């Protein structure tokens, strides 16, 4: 395990970079996913249509294709930015479609009668979602959202392979290709690094699930 101990600093900085990517993508995909889910259940038909189109297109494209589109397609139409920005944006867009669908499953689990009751007291659509539907939908959505987010953490490794430097996965490339370490111990180190992100996240989600279940 010399590869890990000798390069511990490199691993640590890779870990932090990956954690940062994950946290930004987590917040970004939750926000956008929620907005798209609101579109998909809105009373306005064009919004519903837009939401459905977004999910269908994004969810059915492989992440790597999205990444290439962002990194090479966008500059061609004049949008400039760093690999870092494009990479994270692609990850957020990709994940948000899955977040949307997990939330929508939760929304559908809330009786439509409650939404009608909220509308009947004069709550506008957005307030109905915010005050009545989403708090309850979220509880049902925690388990599927958990799977989506853990998948997203792991998908963030693709960004490293793709050339967003400094993250945990690109550490393995640096060490194996550039410095000639054996691949296996390096990759084990990287895998442990990802586990250190996903395991606490999983534990937190389990906690959240217990916590929200009691209030039912």
């Amino acid at each position, binding site marked *: 395990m010399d590869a890990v101990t000798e390069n511990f600093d490199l691993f640590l900085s890779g870990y932090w970079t990956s954690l940062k990517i994950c946290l930004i993508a987590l917040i970004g995909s939750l926000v956008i996913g929620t907005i798209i889910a609101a579109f998909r259940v809105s*009373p*306005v038909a064009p919004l519903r249509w837009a939401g459905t189109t977004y999910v269908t297109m994004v969810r059915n494209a492989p992440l790597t294709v999205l990444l290439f589109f962002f990194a090479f397609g966008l500059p061609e139409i004049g949008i400039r930015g760093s690999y870092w920005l494009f990479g994270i944006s692609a990850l957020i867009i990709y994940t948000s479609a899955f977040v949307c669908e997990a939330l929508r499953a939760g929304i559908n689990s809330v*009786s439509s*009668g*409650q939404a*009608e*009751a*909220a*509308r*009947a*007291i*004069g*709550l*506008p659509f957005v*307030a109905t979602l915010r*005050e*009545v539907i989403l*708090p*309850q939908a979220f*509880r049902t959505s925690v388990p599927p959202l958990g799977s989506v987010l853990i998948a997203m953490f792991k998908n963030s490794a693709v960004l490293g392979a793709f050339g967003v430097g400094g993250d945990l996965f690109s550490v393995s490339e640096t060490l194996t290709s550039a410095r000639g370490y054996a691949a296996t111990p390096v990759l084990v180190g990287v895998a442990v690094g990802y586990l250190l992100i996903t395991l606490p996240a999983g534990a937190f989600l389990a906690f959240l699930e217990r916590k929200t279940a009691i*209030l*039912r």
Partner: protein
Amino acid sequence: MSEETAPSQGDFGRPLVVLDRVEKHFGDLHVLKNIHLTVHAGEVMVVIGPSGSGKSTLCRAINRLETIDSGSITLDGQELPEEGKDLARLRADVGMVFQSFNLFAHKTILENITLGPIKVRKVNAKQAEQDAMVLLDRVGVSAQAEKYPAQLSGGQQQRVAIARALAMKPKVMLFDEPTSALDPEMINEVLDVMTGLAKEGMTMVVVTHEMGFARRAANSVVFMDAGEIVEENDPESFFTHPESDRARDFLSKIITH
């Protein structure tokens, strides 16, 4: 040309809810056929009729939970607007009580009542809570204020639902079979609250088969069948001398059970 089907039943206020030539289809199904209806301020109107005759649809059309194909519905002189802010404002003036209560499951009883006043009427939280407690007291569930809906009996939940609607200080209250999901021993506690409301002069449209309530509290009875208003009369005349065969047939069925 508006139709005045009802004989004069005392002196009510201005026309509050007016339906004129209302038509509604669900696909091929014609659920509301040329509906003319006027509910005056202070009037209590009971809507009765066989299953599938369009009673719920009529009720839901009045606050536009269901859209109509043609015709017009006005509320206090104002045409129902399209979906949006104006419609939300107008809905706040129309209380609705559902068969299945539809309380907000994640909020306490007190929060169920205060949500509308705080978010829609912009009443401050403290005032809203005080008003809510007065209402809960009036419907007899103030002891349950901190509980969640699932912890209450059906009768209690329905009384909370009535209080939730009243908290908006509505001009008119719509009830869609408010007691038909309740165990028999809980029906009266809900009907008593409704009778009290009627006595205080609340304008009400009540879909129900509770003839006792209709006789005691209603000013008019509307009989619907297959999407049409077949008959409109005062309760006593309607129940003792129904004019149409369809009403006679229907009454003979519900009286025997």
